C-alpha cells in the first residue's frame, strides 16, 4: 500500500518546489526588474539587452542565487508543467525528422545474425518451439482459409506474414501476462497451448466453443490462457488494456499487459487516450503496433503523416522502439526487454513492429484490387519471416529437412481431423442464446425464450436441424 501513496506525496512535494521556484517568495527577483524599468535602455527590451544589463550587475553572486538561467546563460522560466528555456529564434519544429527512427533487427534476410547485433541467445528448445509454432500458424491459416472458401466456415482472417510477431512476442512473455488482442494474433493463443481443436471449435461455433458459438470466427477468447475475447471494433481494447494494467498495478503482480493493434487502429481516438492514460498512470502495459502497411485498402500514407507509430511514443511520454517485425529474434528480444521495463519500472512501452500483411484483410476482401500482385508475392516469398527464422535455426543444427516434412504433414493431418470433428459436433443449444446476457436470465428474457420455443414448436420445418432445441 505504501507504494500507492507515494504518488500523492510526490505531487505535494513537487508543488512546493514549483511555487518556490516561481520566485514569488523572493523579493530581489521582482525588484531587479523594477530597477531596470527606469534605465535608459527601457525602450529596447530585447532579451539580449536584459541579459547584458544584468551582466553589469554582480554576475557571480546573482548566478549562485539565481537558478533562472541555464548553463548557457539562457533565461528559464516556470510554467505549469515545468521549466522551459526561452529562445529569441522563432524556429518551427519540422513536420518530419531528418532521419526516420532506426529499426532494430538481429537477423538479416538470410537468417544470419549481424555482427554488432545486441541480442540474448535463446535455447534450442525455445527456438524449435518458436519455429514449430510459426509453421503451425502458417498451416492453420492456410487450411482454415480454404475451409471458408469451401463454405465450411463463414469467415476467416489470416496472419500470413506476421508469424514472427505473433509467436516471438508470445515466447518472450509469461502466461501471467494479460493479452488484449485486436484480431490478427491467434499465434499467442497457439503458443500458450490452445489446441487446433479448440481453434476449430470456435470457427465452427459448436457446443465446445468457449464463446458458446456467439461470436464470429477468429474471435477467440480464453480466460485460462489470459487472452481476452476479441471484440471487432478497432482499438477498443487499448483503454481496456490500461484498465487491466491498472488492476495488475493495484495488486502488485509480477506481470504486465500486452495489447496489439494495427497501423489503422492508431487513428482511433482510443489509441490517443489509452497511451496518454497509461503514461499518466504509470501503467505496466506494452502497446504493440503491428504496422503491416495496410488497413484493408488504406495504405499507411493515407492513414497518418507521422514517422510511423514509434515517433508518437515520446509525444505521450512513453519509451518506444521500432523493430523489424519479420525478424523473430528481434521481436523476442525487444518484448523481453519491454516486459522487464514495464514491470520493474511500472511504465508503458510502445513497440512498433514493421511488417507486411501478406494475406487479404479477411475472406471478405480481395487485396489485388488495391495493391500490385507483384508486391504481395515479393513479401510472401522473399521476405517471409518463417523461412528467415528457419535458416537461422537450421544453421545452428537444430532443425532438419526431415523434421520439417514431419511437422508439416503432422500439423496438416491434425488440422484436417480437427475440422472434421468440429464440423460434426453439435451446435450450442437454444437456451444459450439467452444465458450470459446477465448473470441470471431475467424475466423478460425468459419470456422471450418461451415465445421463441412456442414459435419453433409450431413451425419445426423452419428450424435448423443441427441446432438442439
Amino acid at each position, binding site marked *: *500500500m505504501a507504494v500507492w501513496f507515494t504518488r500523492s506525496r510526490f505531487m505535494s512535494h513537487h508543488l512546493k518546489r514549483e511555487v518556490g521556484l516561481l520566485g514569488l517568495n523572493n523579493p530581489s527577483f521582482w525588484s531587479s526588474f523594477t530597477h531596470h524599468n527606469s534605465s535608459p535602455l527601457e525602450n529596447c527590451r530585447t532579451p539580449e539587452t536584459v541579459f547584458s544589463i544584468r551582466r553589469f550587475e554582480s554576475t557571480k553572486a546573482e548566478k549562485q542565487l539565481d537558478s533562472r538561467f541555464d548553463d548557457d546563460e539562457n533565461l528559464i522560466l516556470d510554467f505549469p508543467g515545468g521549466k522551459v528555456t526561452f529562445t529569441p529564434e522563432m524556429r518551427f519544429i519540422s513536420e518530419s525528422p531528418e532521419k526516420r527512427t532506426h529499426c532494430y533487427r538481429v537477423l538479416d534476410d538470410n537468417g544470419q545474425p549481424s555482427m554488432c547485433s545486441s541480442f540474448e541467445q535463446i535455447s534450442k528448445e525455445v527456438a524449435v518451439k518458436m519455429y514449430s509454432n510459426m509453421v503451425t500458424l502458417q498451416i492453420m491459416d492456410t487450411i482454415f482459409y480454404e475451409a471458408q472458401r469451401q463454405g465450411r466456415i463463414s469467415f476467416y482472417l489470416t496472419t500470413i506474414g506476421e508469424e514472427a510477431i505473433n509467436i516471438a512476442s508470445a515466447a518472450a512473455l509469461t502466461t501471467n501476462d494479460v493479452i488484449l488482442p485486436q484480431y490478427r494474433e491467434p499465434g499467442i493463443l497457439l503458443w500458450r497451448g490452445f489446441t487446433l481443436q479448440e481453434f476449430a471449435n470456435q470457427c465452427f461455433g459448436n457446443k465446445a466453443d468457449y464463446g458458446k458459438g456467439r461470436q464470429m470466427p477468429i474471435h477467440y477468447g480464453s480466460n485460462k490462457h489470459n487472452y481476452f*475475447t476479441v*471484440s471487432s471494433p478497432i482499438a477498443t481494447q487499448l*483503454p481496456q488494456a490500461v*484498465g487491466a*494494467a*491498472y488492476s495488475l498495478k493495484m495488486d502488485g503482480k509480477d506481470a504486465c499487459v500486452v495489447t496489439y493493434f494495427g497501423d489503422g487502429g492508431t487513428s482511433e481516438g*482510443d489509441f490517443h487516450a489509452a497511451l496518454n492514460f497509461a503514461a499518466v498512470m504509470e501503467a505496466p502495459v506494452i502497446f504493440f503496433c503491428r504496422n503491416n502497411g495496410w488497413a484493408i485498402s488504406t495504405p499507411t500514407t493515407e492513414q497518418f503523416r507521422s514517422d510511423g507509430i514509434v515517433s508518437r511514443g515520446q509525444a505521450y511520454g512513453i519509451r518506444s522502439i521500432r523493430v523489424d517485425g519479420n525478424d523473430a529474434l528481434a521481436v523476442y528480444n525487444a518484448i523481453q526487454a519491454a516486459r522487464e521495463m514495464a514491470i520493474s519500472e511500472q511504465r508503458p512501452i510502445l513497440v512498433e513492429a514493421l511488417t507486411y500483411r501478406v494475406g487479404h484483410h479477411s475472406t471478405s476482401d480481395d487485396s489485388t484490387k488495391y495493391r500490385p500482385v507483384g508486391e504481395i508475392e515479393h513479401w510472401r516469398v522473399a521476405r517471409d519471416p518463417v523461412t528467415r527464422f528457419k535458416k537461422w535455426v537450421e544453421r545452428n543444427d537444430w532443425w532438419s529437412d526431415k523434421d520439417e516434412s514431419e511437422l508439416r504433414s503432422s500439423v496438416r493431418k491434425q488440422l484436417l481431423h480437427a475440422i472434421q470433428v468440429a464440423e460434426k459436433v453439435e451446435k450450442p443449444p437454444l437456451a444459450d442464446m439467452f444465458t450470459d*446476457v*446477465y448473470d441470471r436470465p431475467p424475466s423478460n428474457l425468459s419470456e422471450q425464450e418461451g415465445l421463441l420455443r412456442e414459435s419453433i414448436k409450431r413451425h419445426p420445418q423452419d428450424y435448423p436441424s443441427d441446432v438442439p432445441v
Partner: protein
Amino acid sequence: MLLHELLLFEALQEGLEEEMERDPRVCVMGEDVGHYGGSYKVTKGLATKYGDLRVLDTPIAENSFTGMAIGAAMTGLRPIVEGMNMGFLLLAFNQISNNCGMLHYTSGGQFTIPVVIRGPGGVGRQLGAEHSQRLESYFQSIPGIQMVACSTPYNAKGLMKAAIRSENPVILFEHVLLYNLKERIPDEEYVLSLEEAEMVRPGEHVTILTYSRMRYHVMQAAKTLVNKGYDPEVIDIRSLKPFDLHTIGNSVKKTHRVLIVEECMRTGGIGASLTAAISENFHDYLDSPIVCLSSQDVPTPYAGTLEEWTVVQPAQIVAAVEQLCR
C-alpha cells in the same frame, strides 16, 4: 430503529465508502473524483482515505476511462465510473454498448464486467442543452446492462450498494437537482434490489408511474389531487431496465388507469417503452388508454422560463389525472 440525517450526495458517498471498505477490489475512476472530491462531492474524502490509485483522477476521455473500467473489471476489479455529467457518457457509448454490455455474452461467460457507471443527469437549472441530457432513453436498448434511477437519500444509498455488488454492469442515474435532498436513513446496513419499484403513496383511483426528479412533481400534484377528492397511487419505478412489472401490474389491476410522468423526451423515452410494456401485458385491465407526460422533443433551452416548460409541471399532472378519471 436508529436513524441519522444526511443529504442525498452524502448518502451516495456513504454507500460507496461502505462498499470500498468491505471489498478491496472496489475502486472509483472519473474526472476530478480524487483530490477535488467529485463535481457533486459524491467522492469527497475517499482519495485521502484510500489513496489516489484506488480513487483515480483520469484525463478527459470518457470513452477511454470507461474502456479502462471494463478492462479492469475483466481482470478482477469492481470499478465505479463517474461521468461528470451523464451527457458526457455519450462519448463512452461505444465502450458501453459494444463492450460493457456484450463481452460477458460474447466471451461465453468467461469474463464478467461488474462495473457501475453513474453520474448526474436530467434537466437542471439553466445548465444548457448539452448538460441536460436524459441518457436513460439512449441506453435502455443495450442488452446486458441494467439501469436504475435513485430519487431519495434512502434509495440512493441502497441502490449504490446493490449496483456495486451486482455481477452485471449497472448504470445508476442520479439527478443534478436532487443532491441536496435531506432525509433520515437507518444506521444499520441495508441493500436495495435493482429490480424493484417503490410504492410512494398507495391509492385506488389511478396509477402514476414516475422516477427521479419527477417523483417530487408528482407528489406535489398528489397533494392538490387529494384536496380535490382523488386518491392517486404513486409508484417510483426505480428500475428502468428491467421494469418491475410485478409491482406495476398489481397496481394497474387495482386502479385500471395509468399515467406516466417522465423527464425523457416524448420520442423513444422510458415512458414510451413503459407504455408498450404495460399495454402488452395488462391490456385487459385498462379502462382507458395510457397517458404519458414527457418533455417535448426539443433540446433544453437555456432561458429559465422556457426550460421550466420543457419539464412536466404539477399543474399538468393534476389536469391529466382529472382527464383520465373522467
